[in-house]
């Protein structure tokens, strides 16, 4: 009961100084918003990349020549299927297309290489020459819909007309955004790619424990190849997003320092009025412990409010509003950006760290000076002011 009374007094004393309380609250909340949204977005992008790659092949084999990516002969498939543990090897045909009209890059994929996006399609997959399915980003940039025509210029500078038979509405937006899918034969004709070559080989493996061994064997049997495992890709993506998140935090660090100085100044510098208040409280019979509890409640109330509202605003900013500022910096490996609506995902470990790093120092910086004022003689405190 006594604790509640002190809490009530603490809240009342916060309300008695609305100017100071509001100033600290606003700046504190802003800082939490910035920090939390960078954390949320980095985490969400990492989760997105993970789900995106989970549907892909466990192992991709590319050919390299003079250190550059080259088309791989389809005949290499026979060598690879002999390796024990390999379930299937599929040659994939895909490539990039620069669309001068909209200034964007599309990814053109052969139909056979698609794994399991069928259910995410609005319409149907293309069946014959002159048909294609496109990603939502392509549809948006070209202002076309189902059954409209998509004109692309092939390798020989001849315009080809494709009827759009389907539009991807994938949940993992990043993957299908800039995609144009058509049957493999027409795509080879479009790129001028001979039948004996493929862009790369997708290798399916029965036992994930064996992927690294198989990758080593592939490297030995095809010395000019570069096997890329899914876990390597995932690690790279995570490293890239972590690095970008770190850069963002580094950029914001000056703002954070400014906040720290302000919060420190506001919270530690006990005004003459506050000192006198502590003196009076002690004079009317409050313990030092009660005064400390009062200050603790004040600090906790303020920082919890700021922390929760900051996290809430960051959550809305990232997952509903689509991160107006941060998004463009954090993601972005192609020109045609998806409308970023990451799947809401919260890592409580990260939130805990953030709470620990902001709430505890703030509360400490309010309680310690109060303690110093509270242990001095009340008479002296009141006289000094």
């Amino acid at each position, binding site marked *: 009961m006594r604790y509640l009374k002190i809490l009530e007094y603490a809240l009342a004393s916060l309300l008695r100084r609305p100017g100071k309380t509001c100033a600290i609250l606003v700046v504190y909340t802003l800082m939490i918003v910035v920090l939390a949204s960078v954390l949320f977005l980095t985490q969400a992008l990492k989760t997105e990349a993970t789900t995106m790659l989970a549907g892909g092949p466990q192992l991709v084999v590319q050919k390299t020549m003079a250190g550059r990516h080259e088309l791989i002969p389809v005949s290499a498939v026979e060598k690879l299927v002999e390796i*024990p*543990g390999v*379930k299937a090897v599929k040659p994939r045909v895909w490539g990039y297309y620069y669309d001068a009209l909209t200034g964007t890059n599309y990814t053109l994929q052969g139909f056979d290489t698609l794994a399991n996006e069928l259910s995410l399609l609005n319409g149907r997959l293309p069946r014959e020459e002159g048909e294609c399915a496109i990603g939502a980003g392509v549809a948006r940039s070209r202002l076309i819909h189902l059954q409209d025509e998509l004109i692309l210029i092939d390798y020989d500078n001849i315009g080809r007309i494709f009827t759009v038979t389907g539009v991807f509405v994938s949940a993992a937006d990043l993957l299908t955004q800039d995609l144009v899918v058509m049957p493999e034969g027409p795509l080879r004709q479009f790129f001028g790619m001979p039948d004996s070559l493929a862009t790369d080989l997708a290798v399916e493996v*029965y*036992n*994930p*424990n*064996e992927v690294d*061994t198989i990758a080593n*064997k592939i490297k030995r049997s095809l010395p000019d190849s570069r096997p890329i495992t899914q876990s390597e890709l995932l690690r790279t993506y995570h490293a890239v997003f972590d690095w970008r998140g770190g850069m963002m935090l580094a950029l914001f660090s000056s703002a954070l320092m400014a906040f720290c100085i302000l919060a420190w100044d506001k919270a530690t510098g006990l005004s003459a009025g506050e000192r006198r208040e502590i003196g009076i409280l002690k004079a009317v019979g409050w313990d030092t412990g009660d005064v400390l509890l009062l200050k603790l409640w004040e600090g906790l109330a303020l920082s919890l409010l700021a922390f929760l509202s900051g996290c809430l605003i960051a959550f809305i900013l990232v997952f509903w509003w689509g991160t107006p500022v941060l998004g463009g910096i954090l993601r972005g490996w192609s020109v045609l950006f998806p409308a970023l609506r990451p799947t809401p995902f919260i890592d409580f470990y990260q939130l805990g760290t953030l709470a620990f790093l902001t709430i505890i120092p703030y509360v400490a910086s309010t309680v310690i000076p109060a303690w110093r004022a509270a242990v001095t003689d009340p008479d002296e405190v009141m006289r000094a002011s």
Partner: protein
Amino acid sequence: MRLSILCLLFILICSPLFAATPAGPDDKTRCGVCGMFVAPYPHWVAALEMTDGQYFYFDGPKDLFIFYENLATYQPGATRDQVANLYVTEYYTARLIPATEVFFVVGSDVLGPMGRELVPVAGREAAATFMRDHSGTKLMRFDGRELLDAQEQP
């Protein structure tokens, strides 16, 4: 309609074929020896079938054989005659097959959920490859009664 009837027929005809291997553990199944959940390790699952149709699941062939060798300890009252079949998950194909159809590689650098394992590999050639790749030291096989050294056997 016709398609669904065909599907039903197909399932009916094929079901005896599928019935030869155990259905696999569910999420709550624990290893009969160490007590760990089995489902998180689909590439290591081993199973022991009793003649009354009861299945025991294990998180690796090692625990399967510990259970089998010490049947009286783990399943008091049971004898080896009541054991119908032993199944292990083959390393390269990740399929559950009878333990008599595989070679067991000892001392390899491939670790299971319980550490060092008897890694089941089907076929002598594949077993030799596995021993070379993962520095296995010894080859064994199961003849339906016990584990034997398979180094010399054809």
